[in-house]
């Protein structure tokens, strides 16, 4: 029984099966790594979106600040008997609007940068995942192929070969 098992284990067929299982495991490992990287890419996108929302809120605050400043100018000018829509009041109002818009543009640029940065990070993770998967596949096939080739190289007696009397021709 033991000897039979040992003989069966020593057969090339068993070797092929074990090697195939090993290659499969190798592919599974690569796939797990790729899946982790893909998930990490999604996470990067979410993080970028979350960061962009912060900039969006900051933009709203900038616009609020512009309105509040212009309203204060109008109110202060009116109470003081000054036409708020002309003269110095108007130039102050325009100056406030220009400064606020400038700040708003900066916030909007930051939002875009954050979104693009997250996308790029995610794209990198995905590329890494694809490479890992591809490497795993290639590694598995290579490993199995090498093993199969090695087993194939063992060889054995050919049925066409004779014994004993070969080697001398009349």
């Amino acid at each position, binding site marked *: 029984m033991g000897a039979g098992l*040992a003989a069966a*284990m*020593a*057969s*090339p067929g*068993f*070797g092929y099966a*074990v*090697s195939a*299982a*090993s*290659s499969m*495991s*190798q592919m*599974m*490992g*690569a796939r*797990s*790594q*790729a*899946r*982790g*990287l*893909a*998930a*990490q890419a999604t*996470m990067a996108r*979410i*993080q970028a979106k*979350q960061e962009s*929302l*912060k900039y969006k*809120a900051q933009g709203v605050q900038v616009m*609020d600040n512009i309105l509040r400043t212009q309203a204060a100018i109008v109110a202060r000018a009116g*109470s003081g008997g000054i036409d708020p829509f002309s003269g110095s009041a108007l130039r102050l109002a325009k100056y406030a609007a220009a400064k606020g818009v400038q700040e708003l543009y900066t916030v909007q640029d930051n939002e875009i940068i954050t979104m693009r940065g997250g996308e790029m990070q995610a794209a990198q*993770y995905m590329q890494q995942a694809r490479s890992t998967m591809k490497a795993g596949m290639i590694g598995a096939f290579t*490993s199995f192929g090498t*093993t199969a080739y*090695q*087993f*194939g*190289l*063992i*060889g*054995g*007696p*050919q049925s066409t*070969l*004779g*014994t*004993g*009397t*070969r*080697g*001398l*021709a*009349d």
Partner: protein
Amino acid sequence: MAELPRYRPLGVSIGSMPSVNFIQTGAAEAQVYDNISKGLNAISEFVYERAVAEAEIAAVKYGAEIAPSVKQLEEASRTGVTFDPDLPDGFTIFDQKARKTAIDVMQTNMEIAARNEISALSIEAKDTDMSADEFQLQLNAIIDGYSSALGQVNPIAAVNLQASITPVANSKLITHANAMATKAEAQEKVAVSFGVDTIINDIPDIVAAGNKVAEDETVTTIDDSLNLERQRIYALAYGIEDEAFLSRRLEEFDKAVMEAKGQYVVDWIRDSDSPLDAMIQLTNGDIEDENVAILVSQMSPEQAEFAFGKALSALSDEQSVIAADDARDEKARKEKVDGIKADIIDARIAGDPDAELGFIESLREIDEDLYSTELTVFYSGKNIFDNPDSIILLDGMAARGQLTEGMIVQQITDRDLSTDTARTYYTILRSQRDSSHNKAMQLIRSEFNVSAVTGLAFNLNDPQDENNNQKVIQAELELIEAKKANADLDAVAWAKAFIKDSRDENVGLAEGAGLRIFGNEYKKLTTFLKRKGVDPEDRTQVLLALDKAQQNGEINTTEFSNLFNMYDVAGGK
């Protein structure tokens, strides 16, 4: 103006995102699979190693089987069959291993076959005195043949094969070359030795030829000629460069010269009319023969001494030869006389006077005294009386095996012995020529305390001695009779049986002295009588039993006759 209410922000902000690392999770998971893969790879590697090991074992066996055997290789070499091995040539481990094994086995087998061929060639070379060059050519042919055959399969193996065979071949070549050189040297030595032998053998002729005188009257002395021959030995021995050989052969030459000169002198002495006179001439230095005189005059003192000694020795030997011839003639004469005496005795026993006289006459030329004595006995007439003293004397000597013809003749010529009694003594005398008879009689004499004596040491008047003498003589006469009846009788066995019976006081007829003479027939008869329950003492019963046995076919006619005659002769009652 009253300030209007307005919306006041609560200060809600975007929450921070928790940091989740999916890569680590994937890496951890991949690590698990990697471990599994490593384990499976280890199993696969183990299986591979085992499969390789088994394949290699099978390949070794297969490779060994397909390699040509030593016998096949030798046969192929002998018959010139083309060597075309069909070995596995794939790249698999099995094929490579099988090929390597087959090549290794082939290399080994070829080495064995080549060594065998080299050994056989060495023997042939030795037997046929093959030249070293030819031997080397044939050795190279063997080495090249096998290595090139193997080179078609594997050049490296061919080189290895050549490397292993070449030292053997070189060793054989050196051995053979040395042997041939030794042989050639020996042959050269033999040739030189033969030449020297010829020179030495010619020495007596040179000595005998004497001095040579040429037409211009130049004289070449014997020693001049001998010296020339001695120089020739130097010339011959030059080629073999063996000083010991040269020295030995020169010594032999000198001895041969001395011997030849001495022998020439000896021959002159022997051939001369008076060797003694010649010897005197040699002693005095006044030799008449011119050649001998010249020879002696040219002798060195040592040679002269040797020649003189040899001449003396030759004279002495000649005298010894003459004496030896005389002794040989005397011995032959005595042998002839002894033969005639035996013939005379036989004629007397047979009672044939004509033959007796004829034998006596033949003594006339070779022994005159004996002739006269025998003639006196012949013509002394037929005596009819025996002198008791003479009988006691002759009995005593006969009992001891010391009886001689002279004693008998003396008693006859003194007329103290009758012719009939003399015939009995002659019969005893003749029987004593047989060695087995003498051995048998030695046993009997020992049994009756009769021993050989010097002169007349026994007591002529002692009754006990006389009794013992009579017993011995009686036994001897019985033995003679038994021999007459059965020529193949074992005399010693007969004597032992006689002694055994003589010790038994109650010896019956069938076991008596008469029956012993028949040996095996006696045993047959006693067995037969015992089986039939017949009393051997009763002659009638015995004869009836024999007759009945013959009628019943138990014994044939011949057996009946033998048994009956034996019983009758033995004196059955």
